[in-house]
């Protein structure tokens, strides 16, 4: 049963993530008064890209070819171990929050190396900006997580979520609220959404993620795009389950699993829609204003940790 739930969870994240991106894009399009390509467009894009020939830009090495695979692999592992559907997934003991954050950072670092590896100005620029953001986001994620772990005494995701399910009052504690704001900002930065990065821009002054992956084409680009969508889903999933864990299956029955899938899809979908709606009304920040935002979120995370020590 637990194996079934792990497979279902992986399936939901892998197959649902392009759909999530499609829904968010479609929502933005409608709110901006455009017709939009439809929610299934990311899927069509992926299918088209996967069928194209594979190319190696001149002068690039194995790092460039292997980075999308590593990015995808780290995201898949995280999607498998995180307790999205059941509170104690089969790979639960590996679902350590620090490990999850570090794995996701590993994927981003691999992509940054690939950007440098192309030897183009764009690749280096994207990598430099991405690493600057990562260098500030990773601490925020770690510290915010730490704040949530202190009161539970464990960094295991399942344990933290179980504590919240058992005692819903924890969600409105100052620690949770501070950590939630910090995590939200960090997740926006990490997944490259407005106001930190604009996923639909190709203007060299503002590109971050897109500059880094500019040389990718065909199946490699499909992997990068797909993995980015999965990272967005994983981060949103972590966020909803850390702060709104209701619906997560606490026992191993089939009904509970179905409810959990439904709740997970609804929660992530709603959160994604909020994100998309917010992006319509917001402009991208100037690149050098971004660190101020991230420093602010780091400070909030730190406050959350201090609060967790004092209020424990």
């Amino acid at each position, binding site marked *: 049963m637990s194996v079934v739930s792990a497979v279902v969870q992986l399936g939901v994240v892998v197959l649902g993530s392009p759909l999530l991106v499609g829904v968010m894009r479609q929502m933005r399009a409608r709110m901006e008064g455009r017709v939009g390509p439809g929610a299934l467009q990311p899927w069509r894009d992926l299918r088209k890209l996967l069928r194209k020939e*594979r190319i190696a*830009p001149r002068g690039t090495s194995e790092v460039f070819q292997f980075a999308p695979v590593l990015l995808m692999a780290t995201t898949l*592992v995280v999607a498998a171990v995180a307790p999205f559907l059941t509170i104690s997934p089969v790979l639960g003991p590996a679902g350590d929050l*620090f*490990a999850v954050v570090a*794995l996701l950072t590993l994927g981003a670092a691999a992509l940054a190396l690939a950007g*440098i590896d192309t030897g183009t100005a764009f690749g280096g620029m994207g990598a430099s900006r991405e690493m600057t953001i990562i260098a500030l986001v990773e601490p925020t994620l770690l510290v915010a997580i730490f704040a949530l772990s202190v009161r539970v*005494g*464990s960094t295991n995701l399942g344990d933290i979520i179980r504590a919240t399910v058992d005692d819903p009052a924890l969600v409105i504690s100052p620690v949770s609220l501070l950590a939630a704001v910090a995590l939200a900002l960090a997740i926006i930065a990490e997944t490259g959404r407005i106001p930190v990065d604009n996923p639909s821009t190709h203007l060299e002054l503002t590109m971050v993620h897109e500059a880094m992956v500019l040389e990718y084409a065909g199946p490699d680009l499909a992997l990068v795009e797909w993995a980015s969508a999965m990272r967005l889903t994983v981060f949103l999933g972590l966020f909803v389950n850390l702060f709104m864990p209701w619906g997560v299956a606490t026992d191993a029955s089939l009904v509970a699993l179905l409810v959990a899938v439904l709740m997970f899809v609804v929660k992530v979908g709603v959160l994604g829609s909020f994100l998309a709606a917010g992006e319509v009304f917001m402009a991208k920040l100037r690149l050098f204003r971004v660190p101020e935002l991230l420093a602010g979120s780091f400070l909030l995370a730190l406050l959350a940790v201090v609060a*967790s020590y004092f209020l424990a």
Partner: protein
Amino acid sequence: MNLAAVSFVLALAISILAALTALAVDNRVRLLAAGTLTAAGGAMAVVSGIATLGGQTFVADLPDLLPLFGVHISLDALGGVFVMVTGAVAVVVAIYGIGYARGGALRGRTVQAVVPLFVAAMLLVPAAASVATLLVAWELMALTSLILVVAEHRKRPAVAIAGQWYAVMTHLGLVVILIGLMIFAAHSSDDTFAALRTAADGLSPAIRGVVFVATFAGFASKAGAVPLHAWLPRAHPEAPSHVSALMSAAMVNAGVYGIIRVGFDLLGAGARWWWLLVLVVGAVSAVYGILQAVLSTDLKRLLGYSTTENMGIVLIGVGAAGIFATSGQRVLAGLAMTAALLHVINHAAFKSLLFMAAGSVVQATGTRSLDDLGGLRTTMPATTAMFAVGALAASALPPGAAFVSEWLLLQGLIHGVETAGMATAIAMPLSVAAVALTAGVAVATFVKAFGIGFLAKPRTRAAQNAVERRPEMIAAMLTAAVLCGGLALAPGLIVPQLAPAAGAAGPLLSDPATEGALTIRLQGVSGSLSPVLMMCALMIAAVGVVALTRLASVTRARRTEKRLWDCGAGPLSPRMEYTATSFAEPLQRVFDDVLEPEFDVDVTHVRESRYLVDRIEYRRRVPDRIERRLYEPVLRAVAAWGRGGRGLASGSVHRYLGYGFYTLIGVFVVLAVTR
């Protein structure tokens, strides 16, 4: 004589034999003979260290070897860990040195004989069991390393300046350690550690505090902790690379050892403010070190600052262990101490690897500047792969070695909430933030070092014409890389063995922290991590991804080579690439309040028009701010004092005799009045 004793004595004997051999034999065989013997001595030390972790001890008293005090040796599990680390580093560095020193000034008698002596001194420090023995071994370690640091002073004038800084700071460190331990020994029957341990209980808190602070200052300076780190980013880059590896991976550990030995073992953990001090120094060192590292464009200076960072993390662990121990939390104290010791081991493995790889690069290209490197992956593929392994281990990402020890440390800090006290409740979260920030910036640092240094296109002709180094150098790096991999994937085999070492540091730390070989499960607190399973999952996922993309694609053709996107403006040149300076520029902007970088931009206009630019020169320097604020005023004051004193020195012998006479009279007068 048990195994630990035999192998330790053999390690020292072989090292000394290596030194004598280097002096005796001629140029052709010297490198091979000295290198092999040093490596053999290192291997013996590893055996001895492992044996002490198995419970064996080695005690020897040689009362006649050193006049007045005698030599006292006692090797326990705590010292054994450091002997093991030093031995392992010595093995790989000695093998590397056989190839590295070929055909340079480094193959001379002095350098080749001093390297094994340096190793022997580093082995003696953790085995010393009396103040005199410790100090003699410490000074021997300082002197031999100083000789090695200045080995290439004829080639570069900067070496001499680095040597001066190192000589002065290491000796000031020795002086404060000497003062601290002398105060301590003055209150005990003799200067052996056994006597000091019994005397420690009778000391007043004030004296214990003075002893701890004095020794901590000296030991922290050896460990390269901020603000006493100034020698480290000078000496590490200027020393020959195999010596840098020895110093950075093995010698700085002696400082950590000293803090643990004196603070926990001899003084019995003492007061909580000691450990808060250690924690704060560690946190500041970690953050300051990594911020300087990320902006460094000099590859070896970057690695040197990274040493400061890693020692900072170790000190955070030691400080946390002390705080837990003084609050009576044995499990957590043992956990934090285990994390600190594991980080010492991990750091030794990856930093020796990184310095050796950097040494190969410097030798092949003649430059340490990352701005001039690049493209080495085609010309030096083996070295590139080795540096990649080291960089992964250093950047605290799984599956890397540092990730495991930092994970252990954070697990310990999570439970700090149960430790009472306002100061603790503020210091602990701040140190967590420091570890987290360090981890984040470390990723950027090593992406920069590896990406800019080894990937992309070569930025200079020197980088383009680099050739792969000799096989023994690659073999040494491969050994270190395998050790890094082992530490990263199977920490479960090593961590439980560290329990006796933590226990030897103090009875408060005696509980084993973890169990399980494949999965580390913490004992007493919840938490588990399995690097091997994580690695397997990553491999399976990667293979699956590759297989599925192949299945999905319509064509089975191999990758075809295509032009890079150049905006239609013709081929891209290496001058268009991002450099290390430009890569770190956004981070420099973020942290410019902390680091105060200096830069000047020089724009030359075309003669005909002010609006057309002919060339732009951009220069950036990141001065060590602490050095400027703390050291320069002191140095100026000392210089002023010296100038003031010069007036007294007229060169007349009569006057000097007069000074002596009047001073003597003065002393008599003081005695007559006070007695």
